[in-house]
């Protein structure tokens, strides 16, 4: 009992906004973990990050119109994912450039909207909420929508799992085998848009990338089996989101006293720590497998 009360501060399990935060965090982390595995395998971290960040435009537009930012995130994320795909650039260098410029234009517009948000209604909190999220402010009424969206996104990826995997690893091979590559990519991008919107709602638009990339990269370092990696990254994401929530609740008693640490930061820190830890695990395993070359860094696979 002592250990439990040391970890969970008083009132943790009775607090309504904690319940909402735990559920919202879990849904967002589970979906982004599963979808993000394909983002990492495709080598499209930048596109994933850009989708989330430009979604901030939608979030700020929705707030300007007095709507729940989630719908704004979602609308814009779908448009951005579509724009990046429509540009259809296959070479990674050129694709990153196109991604960057879509991102730049989107952010410029986001800046304008946030500026109008803050000067129009003098809610300077709008920028913080949209960019960095506020997990404890997720309302119960938003939860059913989040769960439903997350379910649809997860179903899209799970139902097309084998096609997704082949397309991510070798688009040429997939095309040669008659896989409708563009359709599969479209399904992936739609679920990416939903995943990123859910993450933006919980940890904010600019930190959504942490949930999208961190847990999958960690899982892919720990296992070579893709199915296990999808499952593992979902679980790692949920663990990080929950750990961040618990720590944020506890942090009320940490210095500087009397103010909680933002859950978004704590979730990001846990994600980052797990990624570093998985690197150490990978190195130890590599050393065991390759005793002939002491000190040599094993060829990184993830």
């Amino acid at each position, binding site marked *: 009992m002592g250990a439990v009360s040391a970890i969970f501060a008083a009132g943790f399990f009775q607090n309504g906004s904690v319940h909402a935060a735990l559920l919202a965090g879990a849904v967002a982390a589970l979906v982004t973990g599963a979808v993000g595995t394909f983002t990492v395998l495709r080598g499209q971290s930048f596109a994933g990050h850009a989708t989330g960040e430009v979604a901030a435009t939608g979030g700020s537009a929705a707030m300007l119109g007095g709507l729940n930012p989630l719908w704004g995130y979602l609308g814009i994320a779908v448009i951005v994912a579509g724009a990046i795909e429509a540009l259809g650039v296959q070479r990674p260098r050129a694709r990153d450039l196109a991604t960057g410029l879509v991102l*730049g234009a989107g952010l410029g517009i986001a*800046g304008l909207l946030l500026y109008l948000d803050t000067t129009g209604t003098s809610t*300077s909190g709008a920028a913080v909420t949209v960019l960095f999220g506020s997990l404890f402010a997720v309302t119960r009424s938003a939860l059913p929508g989040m769960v439903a969206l997350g379910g649809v996104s997860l179903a899209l990826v799970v139902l097309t799992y084998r096609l997704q995997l082949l397309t991510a690893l070798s688009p040429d091979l997939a095309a040669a085998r008659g896989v409708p590559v563009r359709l599969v990519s479209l399904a992936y991008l739609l679920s990416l848009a939903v995943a990123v919107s859910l993450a933006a709602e919980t940890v904010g638009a600019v930190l959504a990338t942490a949930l999208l990339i961190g847990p999958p990269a960690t899982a892919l370092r720990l296992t070579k089996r893709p199915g296990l990696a999808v499952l593992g990254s979902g679980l790692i994401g949920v663990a990080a989101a929950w750990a961040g929530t618990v720590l944020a609740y506890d942090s009320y008693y940490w210095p500087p006293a009397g103010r909680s640490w933002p859950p978004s930061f704590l979730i*990001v820190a846990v994600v980052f720590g797990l990624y570093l830890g998985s690197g150490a695990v990978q190195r130890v395993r590599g050393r065991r497998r390759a005793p002939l070359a002491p000190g040599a860094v094993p060829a990184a696979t993830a």
Partner: protein
Amino acid sequence: MASLFTGFMTDTWVAATMVAVVAGVVGFFVVLRGSSFVAHAIPHGSFGGAAGAALLVGVDGTILGISGTIAGLFVFAVAGALGIGWLGRRGRHDVATALSLVMMLGLGFLFLSWSGQYADALYSLLFGEVFGIPASDLLPMAVLGLLCVVGIASLFRPLMLSSVLPEVGEARGVRAGWVETGFLMVVALATTMTVPVVGVLLMFSLMLGPAAASRSVTSNPRAALAMSVGIAVLTVWIGIVLSYASNWPLGFFVGVSGAVWFVAGRAWAWRRRIRGVPLAA
């Protein structure tokens, strides 16, 4: 409009022009090397440093005689560059970039939440505050800008080789790892001097747009470099005038024009292809 060129506005023009020159030069290599994500991540993440400095010494404070904001940006930009380099050698490069970025931003958010009173002042860093550049910042900006240009000039040949023909570079003894580290440091320096003007979110747009457009027009590296600088300067000048007239943030104009330049360059290249003029990639 006469007041556009008087008093403190002179500082604005000087600062913005320096920023545009550096962005044009560094941006050329960012596009050539396909480092768009890094060019986005380092400025973006450096926001955390500015927030940390505000927490330590206040928004207008100084650290060792240097503006606190610039010192904070510098520390985080360099740390970010080294972190991306270090993690990138041990795993996927884009994953390393993404996670370094969110870690720096997360720290920035933590600092921001601790220094609540400074929050509003820090938002200007997100989208830039071209009209508020203190005259005392001009000298450090000029020094950093000069360092960037000198850094690029001294790395010019190895950078070109390792960007365009990595195998040939390797054969000629160009150490790709060192060139990459040197380049990341130049991006970090450029970040430190440019971010207070253009903002952390849109710095990279000023690097990518002009350079991408110039590469679609000419395949001669020196001409493309000069053109990239020219377009960047033009972008910023137009941005200042429009921002002054509308009172909207400069970042908006810079971000949108970045995409416009890119599309214009593509259209130019497409027209030439239609006419049958061969275009070397």
